[in-house]
Every structure is written in structure tokens, then in C-alpha cells.
């Protein structure tokens, strides 16, 4: 599936929820269910410094696709990370670079992506794209 198709699928899933509480409950479930990053990659180097919750991201190339794993110490943040990883992982670096993140607005989580929100998610998306740029250079 392309990034766009995955994003549409996520938007579809979220459209079933009637209020914020159901959306949050779903995100919390996503956050809990994902064994995300190998302990060995939870290093200081892989931390994205948000103000309040810690976010770790690791990337590695498999064939021509980039695999992301990530984690956070806060569960809601972790749920959003799970959504981002689902949308962007196992894709070609070039497609990751070109992808937009508008679907986050559509699933009602816009406030988490405000640059002033101290949860490190904006930095996380930036980091995913930076990894993609770096690996794209390597592939070239």
C-alpha cells in the first residue's frame, strides 16, 4: 500500500469514532499494543527531545525500504507514534520525503502536532523525514 492509501485507511478507522474519548481510547490501545523499538536502540542518541515526554526513533534500510521503530514514555504520545509508524514505515525514502501529514488533522489529532505542543511529535515527523533524506542520499 502507498503512504496515501494507508493514511486514508487510518482516516476511515477514525471516522467511526463519535467523540474525542473514543479516539483517545483507540490511540491508547494502539500505544499499549505495540512492542515498538528494541531496547538497544533506546539510546540517548535516538531520543528526540520534546519538552515533556521522551520519544525514541530508530531507522534501518531493508532492501529499498525504510523501517521505523519508535517508542515513548507517555502512552498517548506512543499511540500517535504508532499511527505515524504505520503510515511511514516500510516505504521507500523518496515517498516518505514527499508525503504530507494532513491526515493527522482529519483524524482530529491536530492539536498534538502544533509546533508549540511540548510533546516532541513535530520533531519526530521531522526526524522521520531526515532519516528518509539521509537514506535516499545513500541509495543514490
Amino acid at each position: 500500500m502507498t503512504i496515501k492509501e494507508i493514511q486514508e485507511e487510518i482516516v476511515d478507522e477514525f471516522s467511526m469514532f463519535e467523540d474525542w474519548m473514543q479516539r483517545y481510547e483507540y490511540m491508547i490501545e494502539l500505544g499499549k499494543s505495540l512492542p515498538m523499538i528494541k531496547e538497544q536502540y533506546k539510546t540517548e542518541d535516538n531520543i528526540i527531545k520534546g519538552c515533556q515526554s521522551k520519544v525514541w526513533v530508530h531507522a534501518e534500510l531493508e532492501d529499498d525500504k525504510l523501517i521505523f521503530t519508535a517508542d515513548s514514555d507517555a502512552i498517548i504520545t506512543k499511540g500517535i507514534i504508532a499511527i505515524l509508524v504505520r503510515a511511514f514505515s516500510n516505504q521507500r525514502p523518496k515517498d516518505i520525503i514527499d508525503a504530507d501529514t494532513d491526515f493527522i488533522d482529519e483524524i482530529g489529532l491536530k492539536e498534538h502536532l502544533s509546533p508549540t505542543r511540548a510533546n516532541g511529535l513535530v520533531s519526530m515527523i521531522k526526524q522521520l523525514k531526515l532519516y528518509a533524506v539521509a537514506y535516499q542520499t545513500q541509495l543514490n
Partner: protein
Amino acid sequence: MIHTVLDILSIRKDFPILNRKVNGYPLVYLDNAATSQTPQKVIDTIVDYYSRYNANIHRGVHTLSQEATDVYEQARQKVRKHFNAAKSHEIIFTSGTTHGINLVANGFAPFLNKGDEIMVSALEHHSNIVPWQMLCERTGAVLKVIPMGLEGKLIMEEYHKLLSPRTKLVFCNHVSNALGTINPIEEIIAAAHKVGAAVLIDGAQAAPHLKADVQKLDVDFYVVSAHKMCGPTGVGMLYGKEEWLNKLPPYQGGGEMIAEVTFEKTTYADLPHKFEAGTPNICGGIAFGAALDYMNGIGFDAIAQYEHELLEYATKELLAIDGLKIYGDLKEKTAVISFNIEGLHPYDIGSILDKLGVAVRTGHHCAQPIMDFYKIPGTVRVSFSFYNTKEEVDILVAGVQKAKAMLS
């Protein structure tokens, strides 16, 4: 039923923002330690200034300038009276607490030698640690820390042991912003003076709850921010004893702070203008005065008594939640509760409370050393003001329970 010394419903009508909804719920504002809300009288004062007599001060021959100067200087008198300073020129208008601390830190540089000691408490806000570290780097002075115990109080025996003739300055907050602990500043000041050290007290978190008398305290410097006591942001006060303020060099150069300027030499203006370079926050200063009028109209004794009732009620209700831990002493403190729930991240709890219209602070509260001490990433901090109600405490507690159920 909570016993109330104040007519809260009538007081709440003074604050237009308390009528708004957040995420579909009535706003429950419990982040007063970060900034307090603004009563209509203060808002009106700001509008009146810009509508009627907006002008630069101290230098105009025209009527508006004279009016603005008069009202601004009246505001300085109000601040002097509120903190009971002996002289109005001991009151310096600043941009806030951080500005006041930096002004003093900068001014002390010429008086410090290598090996001199500056002491800060372990309960400090970052703004009260970083300027001293910078000062130590510049002068070769050494930073010493008054340690804290598990109950969030300073260990005073250690403080007395650390004091010596090498101690030149002691810095401590009157009330801890992260925990609400009221520090024994009378004892701290008296002991520092015995070894010849000067004392700066950060009153930012104390000023909204209790009235400090700078003469009675015999404190050398006391700093506050207006926005934590119903005033606007961007203005605050530095109180300094006249002898100290005369000794310290000016912090910034510019207009207002000079007596005479030639290219060879400039002589500085008298106090307080020596420390008020450039056009000050005129409207802010005036509105600060209006905020003090408003709070004094309600009365600090009544405020303290009512907030204490709220604090006791909220403490009891929150502690009934399984796995909830409150940090810091439960007695000697202002109306602040810093807590965590076992196994949950404070950010998650704060996010869900926000969805329910309840505004709290989460994180390290710019006091990372305290969080390191407890080995936690941060806390959820609720901080009350005199316009909060018992019903709002109930909404908070229900929200925390809901967050816990969702997150566990």
C-alpha cells in the same frame, strides 16, 4: 460543605475568561502558579490607558505625558506600600522576576572574587539557578546548594553549616513553584546577614498568596512578577535596599537611566531610573498597580484562608484516588498540589484533563533538579487561586479518575 470567607460567585464575575468553554466543557483553570487570570478592573485600566493618556513618561512637556507619568509613579507608590518598602525609589519596575534576578546577578559581578561563594536552594526554578551559574563562570565564585529532604523542605542544619565568611550571596524562593513549599526565609535571611552575605528572595510564587513585608523581613532584594497576581505579563518588581541599589552598577544603558551624557563620560540618573533604561512598560506598571488594588480589595488574609480551605479539600479528595502520590510537605505550603499516579505519565494525565476543560501544568515545572531528586520525569501540578471553587475541585478529581481509568 466548604466554609467560605469570600463571596466566590461574585468574585468570579470579575473574571471574564472564567466564562469560556474549552473543548466543549466549562473552563476549570488550575494553572494559576504559571499565570493568574485578569479581572475586568485591570483590563479596563489597560484599555483606559491606551484610550485616554498613552504617552511617553518623564520627559514630555505636554499634558498626556504628565498624566501618564503621574499614574505610573502612583503605581510605584502602590507597589511600595503593598510590600512595605521604606522608599519608593527602592522599587524598580522590571519585565518580571527573571529580569530582576538577572539585574542583581549582573550587578554583583564587580563585588565577587575567586573563591567567594553564592548559595542557592535545591528548590529553585531554573531562572534562579542559571543566572548564578553564569555569574560564577564570570567571576570564579563557587555555587553551593542548600539541600532538600524527601518531604520537599530545605535542610536548614545543612544551610547553617554551609554559611561562612566566604558566602557573599544567598538566593532562595519564598515559595517553591514546583511543590508550593513555603521556605523559612526569615531564618535564611537572618543567618546570611550574620556572615555578611546579601539575600535575594524570589517572591514570584509567594506574592499571589501572602503579603511580604520587605522591611520586617530585612531582605536585601525581593522580586515578583505582576502576571501571577492578577496583573499583565511583561512587568514585575525588584525591591532592593537603597544602599545596595546605589552600589550596584546599571544593568542596561539607554534613555531614562542617565543624568548627563557626553562622549567622554556619562553620569547615571538617581534611583530608580538608573535601572529603568529605555521606555518602560508604562501600561504594564499602571495595570500592576490596579491588580494590587484589586487583590487588596479582597484582602490577603481572606485569600489565604480560603485558598487553604480549597487546598485541604483538594488534598483529601485527590489522596483518596488509589496510587496517587503528592510530592512535598502537606502542611507548610501555598495552594499547590504536585502529584503523580503510579505507572502513568504526567503528560498523559494532563492531556486528558485538557480534553475535559481542566487546565493544569505537567512536566518538570522548570525545576529539573527537584524532579531528579525524586527520580521522576515530572508531575501534574494543580495550583489554585481565590476564584477557584470546591465544585471545580470535584471536576478535577472526576477528571483524574477518568484519566486513570482510560490510561490504566
